[in-house]
């Protein structure tokens, strides 16, 4: 029964020209558009040193880690990232107003970043500061563990300088690799291609919604006929969902093949993690489609509209259409991006960009899987033993 449903759902999807266009052709067309629009920009692009300011105050002077790290980033030479001016708060505000810097960093109880506008340089500034904060936290944790272990020994002697030196060495090696990653891979075009992949993943929801609607008696006549069959909707739907997932995967594979071999997009060393993220992102898109199909009591077109609106809103809040939005949401309502699949996908891609380790990437992949399983489970429960008020 499972394969019977899988076979015919697959045939139905693969022969539907409208769906094929949106799943297979549209992302490729967008890819061509991006290629035409950004390839010239890319050729002329050079990486400029970023002008920033750091507000000099007691907190900053006491934080040796921050001082040393930013000194490293501002060392003259091929790998210089920042040109830093150490100034008062008033002067920093003035420099920002005159657009002589793209932003400034101020430290008190927390670390604040103030930028003039959104853009690639501001993005780099923000991510590097985030990275420095997380590394500092790691040092503090590791240091306290080391100290704790030493204390547990009798007649312990603690060489704080040694601990600090070793950990700082570790962190500097990380910082250096972060710097390298930023310099070699960061480009407008790549961000757009990642956005394209993320959107293609989420639009998979349209396919799963299409097959789910065919199981609902209040949606169409085929749904009525399926509902009166002696097979539970869950059994029927499972085969159909796998078929829609396979079709979605074919669409993504074509997109990757086209961008890599025709548009010559270089996804860098992280091609495998990108595939993994696309596969889990598609699962999340698929689960979103089933949720809308199951719980929205409206016609087929309205459901499609709602699904696309949710997807677009998710993409917007996750920073796909301007990275500033992601910061605003992260800062003010962080829970939204924690449950937003679009944010999980983009964060996963950006983490490959900006983080030398895979912790954040794995966290996003696992979050996407959990989100998908939860949504599919809720939908299947909603579909069980369904009777309608009207059809």
């Amino acid at each position, binding site marked *: *029964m499972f394969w*019977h449903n899988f076979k*015919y759902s697959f045939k139905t999807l693969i022969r539907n020209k409208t769906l094929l266009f949106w799943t297979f052709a549209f992302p490729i067309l967008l890819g061509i558009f991006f290629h035409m629009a950004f390839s010239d920009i890319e050729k002329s692009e050079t990486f400029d040193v970023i002008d920033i300011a750091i507000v000099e105050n007691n907190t900053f002077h006491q934080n040796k880690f921050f001082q040393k790290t930013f000194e490293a980033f501002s060392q003259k030479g091929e790998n210089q990232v920042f040109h830093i001016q150490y100034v008062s708060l008033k002067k920093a505000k003035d420099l920002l107003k005159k657009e002589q810097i793209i932003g400034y960093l101020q430290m008190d109880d927390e670390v604040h970043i103030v930028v003039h506008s959104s853009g690639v340089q501001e993005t780099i500034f923000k991510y590097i500061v985030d990275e420095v904060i997380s590394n500092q936290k790691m040092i503090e944790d590791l240091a306290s563990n080391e100290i704790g272990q030493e204390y547990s020994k009798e007649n312990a002697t603690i060489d704080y300088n040694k601990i600090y030196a070793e950990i700082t060495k570790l962190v500097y090696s990380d910082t250096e690799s972060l710097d390298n990653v930023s310099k070699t891979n960061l480009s407008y075009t790549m961000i757009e291609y990642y956005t394209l992949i993320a959107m293609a993943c989420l639009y998979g929801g349209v396919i799963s919604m299409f097959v789910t609607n065919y199981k609902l008696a209040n949606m169409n*006549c085929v749904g009525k006929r399926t509902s009166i069959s002696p097979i539970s909707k869950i059994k*029927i739907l499972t085969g159909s969902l796998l078929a829609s997932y396979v079709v979605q995967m074919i669409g993504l594979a074509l997109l990757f093949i086209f961008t890599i071999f025709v548009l010559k997009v270089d996804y860098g060393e992280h091609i495998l993690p990108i595939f993994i993220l696309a596969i889990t992102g598609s699962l999340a898109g698929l689960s979103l489609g089933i949720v809308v199909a199951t719980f929205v009591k409206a016609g087929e077109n309205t459901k499609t509209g709602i699904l696309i609106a949710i997807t677009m809103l998710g993409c917007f809040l996750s920073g796909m259409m301007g990275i500033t939005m992601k910061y605003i949401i992260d800062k003010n309502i962080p829970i939204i991006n924690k449950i937003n699949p679009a944010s999980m996908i983009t964060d996963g891609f950006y983490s490959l960009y900006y983080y030398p380790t895979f912790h954040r990437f794995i966290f996003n992949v696992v979050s996407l899987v959990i989100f998908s399983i939860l949504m599919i489970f809720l939908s299947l429960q909603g579909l069980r033993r*369904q*009777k309608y008020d009207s059809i």
Partner: protein
Amino acid sequence: MKKIIEVKNLTKEYKKLKAIDHLSFEVKEGEILGLLGPNGSGKTTTINCLLSLLKFQEGTIKIFGKDMHPNSYELKRKIGVVFQEIAVFEELTVYENIDYFCGLYISDKETRKKYIEDAIQLVGLENYKKFYPKQLSGGLLRRLNIACGIAHKPKLIFLDEPTVAVDPQSRNNILEGIKRLRDSGATIVYTTHYMEEVEILCDRIIILDKGKILAQGTSTELKELANIDEKITVEVEKISEKVIDKIKRFPTIHEVNLNMNTLIVTYKKGQDNLGKLIDCLKDNKVVYSKIFSERPTLNDVFLSLTGKELRD
């Protein structure tokens, strides 16, 4: 005979509208029950409630002696439904559509293959197996719709207006197919607003209007209810009120109606009504072009029960 369907006191309301109003009826094994009524009379709603697709406020439904629920899979296995709307996949061929729906009931491939061929033969789609639905005419689509609903050889079949908008050739083909299904032992519930089909096909008829049963019985029993034995239709050039009054005074007359140039005279009973009417028209020098006598139809029954035509 065994009761296949037992419906007691079924009531379905849509907000303020009562779509089905305390409906009770039974369907016996091997019979074709006709649900006859105008559009909006509650025929399709009744079927949807029987199939457990719709919630209802009151009443009980037993099919094959058991309560019907959305997860009554053993009962559903014995049921086939042909919906009023075409319920097929546009992306699948004729053969694939039938195979898909039949496969929801029959898992053995060899058995299914035979059943599909039988269904295709029954509805006469042998030459269209590889056609897609959009390549079929309205009548052929209806036949495909039927094949998808009955391919698994169900014991109980619901046919909801299967001949709507169908050409005469396809209609005859469909009606013949339904008779063959009955002959093979299936029990059939047939809804329509075409009284001719009901008269040809059904062993018993329930006349519905506004969700209520107006009358039920065999075609002959229902016609007796209307208190009409004969209906004579005359196309006249001109007829005076005086002549109409004379006709109305005939002893067995039921009703006389003049609609434009068509005079319809119905009789309670009696013999030689046609001869007496022709004599009367001749005596009063009424010129007529056409005159014919017929037995009353179910439409006349409906008219006498509700005061309106079935297709109003």
